[in-house]
């Protein structure tokens, strides 16, 4: 704003600060809780200052986990989650890039029909088709496997649609120049379209990675072997410990570790965004 109105400025900042505090407080509590000793939570008050057991808690969770509650070590679950999220992300990007390329740049029968078919599936969330999908995966013998965890979640209308929209903004002369320069369709895709889409790929990578990482219902359904538990669903198992109260200090350590990778992915990809935004021009 151009005008300088100190009171309205102050007011606006107060509201913003209150909002930030509201969002950050649970995160803060989780971090604090993960540093407490075993007895703290039984007293009924929530400590707001860090305790001295941080290293013990995290090491215990990473190495052994809560075997009493049937949960494997967090280290293993983090690894499982990472593999699932990466498989979903890379699979989604590869498929949607190629299908958008086909829809935008090739003339084939029923092209528009296929586009709408893909577009319509945007309206169907995973939960709607979860029973038939489970049936298919079970019959294919993919329960308790990484393939079963990731493949059913790979098909993505959203990414296809976004890439289609982006490809349509790429000037047609670039394709023509490439044709005159002797580049076939795949060469054009690899040498020109992919480098130009790098910003979009980075953005979708973040979105898809978080989508894959946060999958809860699907891993819960198809994994019964603890070796394939993912961290987001594993946390749920920890909280429903059969005997006695949940060990909140350990659960919170797992929560903090589960929240870290998406943050890291965003931080890493953010640099790519900025780079992509400043270096390409349509």
């Amino acid at each position: 704003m151009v005008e300088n109105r100190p009171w309205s400025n102050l007011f606006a900042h107060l509201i913003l600060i209150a909002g930030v505090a509201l969002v950050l407080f649970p995160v803060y509590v989780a971090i604090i809780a993960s540093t407490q000793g075993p007895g703290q939570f039984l007293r009924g008050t929530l400590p707001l200052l860090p305790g001295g057991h941080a290293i013990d808690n995290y090491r215990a969770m990473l190495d052994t986990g809560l075997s009493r509650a049937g949960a494997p070590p967090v280290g293993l679950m983090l690894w499982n989650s990472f593999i699932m999220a990466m498989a979903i992300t890379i699979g989604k990007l590869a498929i949607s890039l190629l299908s958008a390329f086909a829809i935008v740049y090739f003339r084939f029968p029923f092209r528009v029909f296929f586009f709408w078919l893909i577009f319509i599936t945007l309206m169907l969330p995973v939960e709607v088709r979860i029973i038939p999908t489970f049936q298919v995966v079970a019959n294919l013998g993919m329960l308790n496997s990484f393939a079963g965890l990731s493949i059913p979640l790979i098909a993505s209308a959203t990414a296809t649609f976004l890439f289609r929209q982006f490809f349509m903004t790429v000037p047609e002369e670039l394709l023509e120049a490439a044709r005159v320069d002797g580049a076939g369709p795949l060469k054009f895709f690899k040498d020109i379209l992919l480098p130009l889409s790098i910003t979009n790929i980075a953005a979708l990578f973040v979105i898809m990675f978080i989508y894959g990482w946060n999958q809860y219902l699907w891993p819960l359904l198809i994994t019964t072997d603890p070796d394939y538990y993912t961290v987001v669903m594993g946390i749920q198992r920890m909280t429903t410990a059969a005997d006695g109260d949940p060990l909140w200090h350990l659960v919170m350590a797992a929560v903090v570790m589960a929240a870290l990778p998406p943050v890291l992915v965003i931080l890493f990809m953010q640099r790519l965004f900025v780079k992509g935004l400043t270096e390409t021009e349509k």
Partner: protein
Amino acid sequence: MASITLEGLKKSYDGKIQAVKGIDLEVADGEFIVLVGPSGCGKSTLLRMVAGLETISQGELRIGERRVNDLEPAERDIAMVFQNYALYPHMTVFDNLAYGLKNRGFKRHDIERRVADTARMLEIETFLTRKPRQLSGGQRQRVAMGRALVREPAAFLLDEPLSNLDAKLRVQMRVEIKQLQRRLKTTSLYVTHDQLEAMTLGDRLVVLNQGQIEQVGTPMEIYTRPATMFVATFIGSPAMNMLPVDYLKERGANGVLDNLPQGTDIVGVRPDDMRMQAPAQPHLVVESTLELLEAAGAESHLYVRLAGSEQPTVIRTSGQPPVAEGETLRFHVIRDALHPFNRDTGQRTDC
């Protein structure tokens, strides 16, 4: 180096709309041909058909002795310069120039040598490592030219390459393109809607209108003897004035119009050929009222309305004539300055 032959080339969309209606043209080896016409006349479509970016509906296209109708653009041995340059935005200037060579399997040191030679010729050596975004409009234009030159193709196709530049740069690049083409002697097809570009660049002009050739000839032929009324009014600025013969006879033609060719009912007069001083030869006299005086420095344009007629007419004189708007002026036109046409056929009648 090759000639280009177009035989009955036609382009129709969905079998109905005809964008190009049968073009026959022989472009000699090393010739610079300019395709000129108003927007929508099919000149760009024609160029793109030669390039292979549009399919040919009918007719035959040969580059050299080879029939290339069904070949991919890359196989036709042509290079194209696009109106918006179409440089690859994520590649450096060097990579932009090298891309076509790489795809053709040139050796690395050959690529480097060729790019270096081309860059030197176009004076773009200093920005070989930059991206197109970091270049000015004129520099991008040079890179686009370079990308075409570096391949040493049989023919250059240029699609309004100067229309995105400012007026001053356009004149400069026009001169450079002409010099470059003279030096390299590569067959070139150049599309423009700018008749000044067309006149100054081409060895021959092809004037197109509604998908058909109106006239083919050297710039001076086309200027001095336009074959149709369309060419007469399209080439030359300000445009040629068209005066009905009946009107001129009514106003007293002094016998100047007596021996016009058969079928002439309208005559064209260039704005420069309407003189304010009476010449010694027999001449027409046209009376008119000055409506607007446009002083452009070295010359002036007089927008007049002919007496007893609603017809707007333009006259060009050198310097600034001592006249005021609203004044009645007399203009003199000699017989040799008249271009006789038939209004219905649009054709010139004295050929």
